[in-house]
């Protein structure tokens, strides 16, 4: 049974169960001539049967999706004959992978016939196991909904039960946010620990050289590779610094102009413009940085007699700054707007001009909120990927010169993980170590920034 025919059948049965429950409740109600009728509306009885049907089937399906690879492996392992295990001339642990990788319809001549036979068996169980599970899902779910249908009577409060289940479903949906966070932390930590088994933690954190190319042969020169992340961190900081020095002044000035000087008409025009700037995908900024800004900077700088790398930190950081302008301006705009009017009016009453009021009263009052906005922007900048992947360098340079090419944490994660992956080499695992560093750095920044912003809101609200 294919997935879609199964799905159609599932929907049809679900509809039928719902309809049957409702009509059964209606029938019972019409048979009661005197005395209290069913405690809940008839459609709740149908809904109850439907809910048990849906819940049971989705649970089994989800469990199956998670367990399928393991169950298939187990079945395959039991099927493998002793002859094959003894005749297989590789590492025994590789046997299952070899079988899975063999295509029984298109194999290399000279492949062990026993392996082909096992591969055929694996293909067979891979295809048929789904159908069996689908049948089982339908069967078990139907049994549960029949139980629910049989329960319909005066003593069964269907509404309470349905609402309770619904609320539990809602709670589960909210908990997905927590599950995601846990998933992120665990998946990163697991692989990062495997990395730190190969490379000492402090070598990673304080090492000054980064060249993750591990050799294929043990005896090759520099077979270890170097995993000192300091040049990557410094590169990230340099690009973030460049981005912030573009974004903070322009973003803040824009926010001040929009919230304090622009009249309603101008405001209505300016806000969407900044929103467009915020809505441009980062891959577009990356293209712009690499194709337009990079060559332009190169021409400009060489005109003055200096030299600049074509993938300079200046190009990537500058364009990243443009991307962050709307982020800073909209957050600061909110913050400046929430400074109470009374503060401004007090200042005007003392004879201060508008600019004096802004500089000496509004901005100091809004400073914590603006700091929060800037911190959020920094966290955004260090996690930004596409711009730097397209416009910054790959080689790790330990430099503070924005004219040179530097690399960032995100660029390294992408270069280490795109392409061939072997999940036991330090090279790929290093990406996860970088990932967890990035995650915790942005986490701390975000939590701190959100705390500042929230505290600030409480003062004036």
């Amino acid at each position, binding site marked *: 049974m294919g997935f879609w025919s199964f799905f159609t059948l599932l929907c049809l049965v679900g509809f039928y169960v719902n309809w049957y429950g409702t009509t059964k409740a209606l029938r019972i109600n019409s048979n009661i001539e005197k005395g209290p009728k069913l405690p809940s509306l008839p459609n709740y009885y149908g809904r109850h049967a439907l809910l048990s049907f849906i819940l049971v089937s989705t649970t089994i399906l989800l469990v199956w*999706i998670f367990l399928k690879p393991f169950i298939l492996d187990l079945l395959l392992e039991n099927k493998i004959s002793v002859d094959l295990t003894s005749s297989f001339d590789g590492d025994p642990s590789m046997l299952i992978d070899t079988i899975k990788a063999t295509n029984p319809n298109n194999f290399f001549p000279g492949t062990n016939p026993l392996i082909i036979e096992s591969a055929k068996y694996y293909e067979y169980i891979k295809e048929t196991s789904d159908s069996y599970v689908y049948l089982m899902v339908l069967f078990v779910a139907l049994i549960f909904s029949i139980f629910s249908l049989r329960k319909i009577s005066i003593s069964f409060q269907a509404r309470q039960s349905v609402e309770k289940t619904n*609320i539990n*479903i*809602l*709670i589960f*949906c*909210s908990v997905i*946010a*927590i599950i*995601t*966070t846990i*998933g992120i932390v665990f*998946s*990163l930590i697991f692989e990062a620990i495997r990395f730190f088994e190969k490379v000492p933690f402090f070598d990673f954190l304080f090492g000054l050289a980064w060249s993750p190319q591990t050799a294929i042969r043990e005896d090759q020169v520099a077979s270890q590779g170097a995993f000192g992340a300091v040049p990557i961190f410094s590169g990230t900081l340099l690009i973030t610094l460049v981005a912030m020095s573009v974004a903070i002044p*322009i*973003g803040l*000035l*824009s926010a001040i*102009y*929009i919230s304090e000087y622009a009249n309603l008409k101008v405001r209505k025009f300016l806000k969407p*413009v900044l929103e*467009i*700037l915020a*809505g*441009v*995908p*980062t*891959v*577009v900024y*990356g293209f*712009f940085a*690499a*194709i*337009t800004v990079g060559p332009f900077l190169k021409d400009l700088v060489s005109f003055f007699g200096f030299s600049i790398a074509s993938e300079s930190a200046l190009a990537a950081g500058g364009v990243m700054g*443009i991307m962050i*302008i709307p982020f800073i*301006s909209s957050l600061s705009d909110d913050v400046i707007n929430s400074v109470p009017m009374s503060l401004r009016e007090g200042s005007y009453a003392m004879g201060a*001009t*508008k*600019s*004096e009021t*802004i500089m000496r009263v509004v901005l100091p009052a809004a400073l914590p909120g603006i700091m929060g906005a800037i911190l959020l922007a920094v966290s*955004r900048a260090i*996690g*930004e*990927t596409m711009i730097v*992947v*397209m416009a910054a360098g790959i080689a790790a340079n330990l430099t503070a010169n924005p004219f040179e090419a530097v690399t960032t944490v*995100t660029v390294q*994660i*992408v270069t280490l*993980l*795109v392409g061939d992956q072997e999940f036991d080499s330090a090279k790929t695992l290093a990406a*996860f170590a970088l*990932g967890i560093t*990035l995650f915790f750095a*942005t*986490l701390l920044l*975000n939590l701190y920034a*959100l705390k500042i912003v929230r505290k600030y809101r409480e003062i004036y609200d």
Partner: protein
Amino acid sequence: MTNITEKIKLSLSKRQRSEKRFKFLGFIGISFAILFLIIILYSIFSQGQSAFKSTYIELNIFFDEKIIDVEGKRDIEDIKFANFRKIITNSLDNYFPEVEKREEKRKLHEFISSSEEKNLMNLVLSDQELIGKSKQLWLLASSTIDVIHKNPEMEEIVESDRLVDDLELSWFKTFKENGNLKFGFNKNFFSKADSTEPEQAGVLGSMLGSFFTLLITLILSFPIAVAAGVFLEELAPKNRFTDFIEVNINNLAAVPSIIFGLLGLAIFLNVMHLPRSAPIVGGMVLALMTLPTIIIATRASLKAVPPSIREAAIGLGATKFQTVNHHVLPLSMPGILTGTIIGMSQALGESAPLLMIGMVAFIVDIPGSFTDSATVLPVQIYLWKSTAARGFLELTAAGVMVLLTFLILMNGLAVFVRQKFEKKW
């Protein structure tokens, strides 16, 4: 007293000047932001527009029976395997009979894109009467010729810096002078997937990949996010647990997108063994990313529904769940939909997490289902940008234009929904 007033009067003009300066500074700031936007859009538009047309060369094609149908049986299988390249090269040779050296002939034969072989085959299959006859046809030129045609200034530069040598340029000029060269609409761009040849590469494959991915994202994130938003805003008791959920959601909204890619790689691919490069995995990763956006939008629009609605429903005997389900949620739907569309448009532009789960492969086939290998529009842009061949630059910019068009459409839809259906209380 007068002393102070005079002092203030003296400083007044200076203060007013600094006031004007400050206002001007603010104006400069916002102008810079607008200027950047204009520059970005202009640079993309000016580079991308030429990708929508491509060069065609008119040739007299002779459908030689000896090549197409050697046995004369008009068997479809025979025609399918016929050497249509030979038919094109023959007509090129006829056009320039003076070219005789092998090496030069080879160069001449590269004028026409290899995709035309299949087109000619289809032409013959649809009209078998053509066999043995001649016909004037416009054929797609190769990307090198296309680049020369689009940049006439390249004809002037020295041979070593040019894409073509003097001989090829002379052939090109002959075509041009005889009027056998024209610009036509680039059909391949909207009907093909990726290719190694710029003139044959298109966005259809990645557009469909984006469609499948976003469909999964929508199916997963919309119900879950609305459910979570409803629970947190309307039904949740205020306690540590719900506070923790809230902190988590706020934080997830600010986690770098590439981290979600690492999550997808480690869990969806390595633990659950879902297929690499498939829209289903991409959709799941993007759904996790979009959740916080939709949850926050849901809560905001639930909050906007006035409490009188709830009180009226409860006053008539509805339970809390019925109140929310029958009254509050339908009323806040426009706001939720607006937030969802905006979340979807963010997901459409997102590419970093998809790089992690292998949606960067070079895929020539147009994906047909959720488990086929596919790529998405922004990743296709990234892939083309990383390709060195000359013709891909304008394709990249054109891809950006397509992506931006979709984003504008989606955001326009969001604005429309907001203005048409949203209630002001």
